[in-house]
C-alpha cells in the first residue's frame, strides 16, 4: 500500500496522464462523438487532407463494391507500385504492399510474387469485411506506396517509420518517432516490438527511446543510435498536425505522419483515442503541457 502511494505520488509529480483521466477529461470532454467517423475512415481523412492542403499519399482508386472489381485492371494500369488497404482496417490488417510488376505478376514488398487473381481475391476479401474488426462490409483503397525517406534507413528495419504527434486544442504537445524492428515485422507498432523514440518538440531531435517498455539507445537490428536523431521537415510536421487537428474539430488527437523520399512528410491518419505509451517513449508526462494550454486558453 505504501509503495502504491509512493508510485501514485511519483506519477503525479511526473505529470503522467492516466487512462481514466484521458478518457474523461480529454476524450469525452474534447472529442465530440459525431466527429469520430471523420478519422475512422481513411478515405474521409484523405478528402479532408485535400481540402485543407495537407499532403497525404495519393489515392489511386477506391473500390466500393464487388462489381467494381471489373475495373481493377484498368485502375492499376498506370501504377507499378501501390498499396491496397481496407478503409476501416485496424492494426495494419489487410494491407497489401506491391513494389513492382512484370507483364503477368506483381511483386510484394517481401519479394513474393502475386497473380492478378490473387489481388482481386484480396480486394474482394476487404470489401466483404474480412479485415474490418466488426466484420461489416468495407471499401478497398488503392494508395500511393510510401517510399521511406533515406535518412530513416539506418534506424529502421524494413517497413516504414512514422511520427506520432499528440495535438491538444490545436497545439502539438508531445511527439514520438516509431521505428520498426525485425521483431515488429516491419510494423511501426509499439506493443509488437517497434522502438518508440521521444522527439523534442522544439528541435525535432530524439532525446529518449524505449523498446518493449525498456530504455533503448541503439536499434537492435541496425545497431545505429536512436538518440539524437534529427527528424527532417520538423516545422512542416508540426504545422500539418495543427492543421489536421483544426479540421477534424477534435480537441485531443494523435496524428500519424510518414516521411516519403520524394514528397516529404505525408499525413497517414489521425486517431481519436491516441495511446498513452508516448509518455514512456518521452519519459515525460502529458499533463504539464495539457494543463498549460488549458490555463493559457482561459487567460485569453
Amino acid at each position, binding site marked *: 500500500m505504501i509503495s502504491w502511494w509512493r508510485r501514485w505520488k511519483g506519477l503525479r509529480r511526473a505529470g503522467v496522464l*492516466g487512462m*481514466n483521466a484521458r478518457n*474523461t477529461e480529454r476524450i469525452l470532454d474534447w472529442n465530440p462523438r459525431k466527429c469520430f467517423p471523420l478519422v475512422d475512415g481513411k478515405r474521409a481523412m484523405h478528402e479532408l487532407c485535400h481540402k485543407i492542403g495537407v499532403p497525404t499519399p495519393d489515392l489511386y482508386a477506391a473500390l466500393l463494391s464487388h462489381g467494381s472489381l471489373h475495373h481493377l485492371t484498368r485502375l492499376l494500369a498506370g501504377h507499378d507500385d501501390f498499396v491496397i488497404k481496407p478503409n476501416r482496417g485496424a492494426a495494419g490488417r489487410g494491407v497489401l504492399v506491391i513494389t513492382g510488376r512484370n507483364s503477368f505478376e506483381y511483386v510484394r514488398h517481401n519479394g513474393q510474387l502475386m497473380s492478378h487473381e490473387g489481388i482481386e481475391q484480396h480486394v474482394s476479401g476487404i470489401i*466483404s469485411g474480412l479485415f474490418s474488426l466488426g466484420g461489416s462490409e468495407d471499401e478497398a483503397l488503392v494508395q500511393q506506396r510510401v517510399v521511406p525517406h533515406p535518412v530513416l534507413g539506418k534506424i529502421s528495419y524494413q517497413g516504414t517509420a512514422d511520427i506520432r504527434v499528440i495535438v491538444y486544442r490545436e497545439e502539438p504537445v508531445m511527439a514520438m518517432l516509431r521505428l520498426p524492428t525485425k521483431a515488429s515485422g516491419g510494423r511501426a507498432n509499439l506493443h*509488437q516490438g517497434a522502438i518508440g523514440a521521444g522527439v523534442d518538440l522544439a*528541435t525535432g531531435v530524439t532525446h529518449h527511446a524505449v523498446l518493449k517498455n525498456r530504455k533503448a539507445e541503439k536499434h537492435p537490428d541496425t545497431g545505429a543510435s536512436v538518440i539524437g536523431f534529427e527528424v527532417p521537415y520538423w516545422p512542416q510536421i508540426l504545422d500539418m498536425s495543427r492543421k489536421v487537428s483544426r479540421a477534424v474539430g477534435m480537441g485531443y488527437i494523435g496524428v500519424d505522419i510518414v516521411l516519403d523520399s520524394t514528397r516529404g512528410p505525408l499525413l497517414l491518419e489521425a486517431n481519436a483515442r491516441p495511446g498513452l505509451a508516448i509518455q514512456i517513449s518521452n519519459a515525460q*508526462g502529458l499533463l*504539464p503541457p495539457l494543463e498549460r494550454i488549458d490555463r493559457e486558453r482561459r487567460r485569453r
Partner: protein
Amino acid sequence: MAMSRTRLTALTALAIVGLAAGVTIVRYATDDSDVGDLPGTSRWEVTLTIRGESAPGKAYRVEVSNPPSFRRQHVYELHYDSKEVAASEGRAAAAKDNPGRKTTLKPPTTPIAGAGAQPYLVTQKFRATLGALYSNAAMKSGDRADNKPNPDNDRTLAATARIESDHPDIVKLARDLTTGWEAKEDQYRAFHEHVRGLRFRDTEGNGSALDCQTKGGDAAGRARLLVALCRSQDIPARVVTAIHLRDDATTVLHRWAEAWIDDPEPGRWLPADATFGHFGPADWPQTYIVVRLDDKSLVRGPGAKVAVRAEPMGGPPAGEDPPVRAFWRAVSFASLPPAEQHLVRFVLVLPLGALVVGFFRVVVGTKTFGVFTPALLGLIFRDTRALPWGLGIFAGTVIVGWAFRKTLDRYSLLMVPRTAILLTMVCVFLLSVVNVAAKAGVHITGYVALFPLVILTHMVERFWTVEVEDGTWSAFKTLVGTVFVAVAVALAVGPEAVSRWFFRFPETLLVVVAALLMLGRYTGYRLTELYRFQDVIELQAAVVKPPYTGNGTAEAAPAKTAEAPALPAPAGGKP
C-alpha cells in the same frame, strides 16, 4: 468544464444515495416488520431438517417439496441451507424444477466409484402466514390448485397401491355407508364419520387404505381410506400432505383428504380431517400448512429423515393494515409467485456484479473480455462450490476454441460462417468434456447447461482478436483477468445475505447507480498504471530539469522553458 461535469456527477450521485436512504428510512419508519408477511390469524417460522446418507459411491439428489402460497396460506422467504448439496440456479432451476413445487439439491460433484457413503444435511426454512386477510399475486397464482379436477390427468379417481379404491371390500363398504344419502357432501360426511371412528395405529405414514379399515391407521392411513371411499363412488378426491404446526410440542407432518363436491354448482374442494375430526372450511384449524396436494412424500433422497420445527412469530398482530403498509406490501417482491421471486433474486444482483466489474476495470485496470461477461460468469457461479469447475470449463473452452480459430484463419472465411463453425466447435468441445467427465464418474452437466454458448463463441473471437493485435501474452493475461474478476463477482453476489438484502431493499440499486456514476468520472490512476509508467517516475526523479522544452511554436517557445520547471505538481486525479 471538466470540473463542473465531475461536480455535477458527484451531486447527482449524492442525491441518488439520499433518495435510496430516504426510501429505506421511510420503510423502517412506517413498517418495522417484514413486508413479505401478510396480516393473518397466525404467522410462523418453519424449519425442516432433513438428514440422510447416500449409498456408497452412488450419485444422489435430494428433492424437497416447497409449500405453495394459495387460499389463505402465504409462504415467503423460503430458502435452503446445506454444506453438502446445492440447488441449481437461475434458468436451469426454472427449467428443471418448478420452484413453486419443489427444489432439487445435488452435490457439486459426483463421487468417484468406490467412495464411501456420504451423509448430508439440508435445512429448508420459510415463513408462513395462515388465515391471511388478503390474497396477493403469489396466492392468486397458487389458487389454480383449487380448479375443477380433471381425473384423466390428475388421477383424482385412480386406484393406487395404497389407495385401493377398486378393492371389493372398499367398494362394498362405500356402498353400505352411502345407503340413504343422495347428496355427495352427505356421502362424504358419512365416510368421514366412519373413518374417524376407526382405531388409531401408528404406521409411520405408510399404512394403506385397506390396512386402515381392517387394523386401524394414523393420519396417513385415514386420509387414504377416506380418499379411496370417495373415489370408489366416483367422487374425485386427493390426499393433502401438510405440516401441523404446534409451538408447545414437536411439530408433525399431517395428512387429510379433500373431495371435489359439485352438487351445488360450481363445485369446491372440501377438506376433511379424519384424525382430529375437522370437516369443511368452517372450523378448519389455522395451524395446518399445506405442502403438497397429493400423497407423495415431502422429501425424496437416500435415507432421508425429516424433522420439523415451527415457531410462532411475534410482531404486530395483523388485524389492521394501514395504507402505508398496504403500499409497501403491494410493491414488495415477496408477494410475487415463487418462480418470479427466483428470477427477481437473480436479476437484482446483476447490477452489483456490473459494479464489481466496473471497479476492477476503472480503478484496478484489470483487462477483461467483454464488459459484462465476467459479471455474468460470476453470477452463474455464485455458488462458489461450482466455481472451480465452471471457470475451468470456461478457460478450457476459450483456449481450445482459440486453437480452432487460429486454424480457421488460414481459410480466410467470412465472418458469419466462420463464427458458426466456431460455435459448432465450441459445442463439440463441451459435449466431449461432458462425455469424458461422465465416463470418469463426474457429472458436470449442471454447469455446462448454464453456459451461454453464443457468449463463449464470442469470447473465442475476442481472444483471437486480442492475440493478433497485442500478442499471445496479452490475450492470456486478459483471460486470467476475466476469470479473476468473475471470481470477485461470485464472491460479492454469492452470500445469501446479499441477495436477501437486495430483495428486501431494492432501492439499494440506486446506491449501485450512484457508485457507478462516481466511477464514471474517476480520473485517478489505475492500479496497473502505477507499474506501467514506472520508468517515467524513475527517470523524472533522476532528471534535474524536466526535458520538456516547448510546443515548437515560435512565439510561445521562450516562455515555455522558463515555465516548465516551475510547474506545480499537476492534479492528476481529484478535481
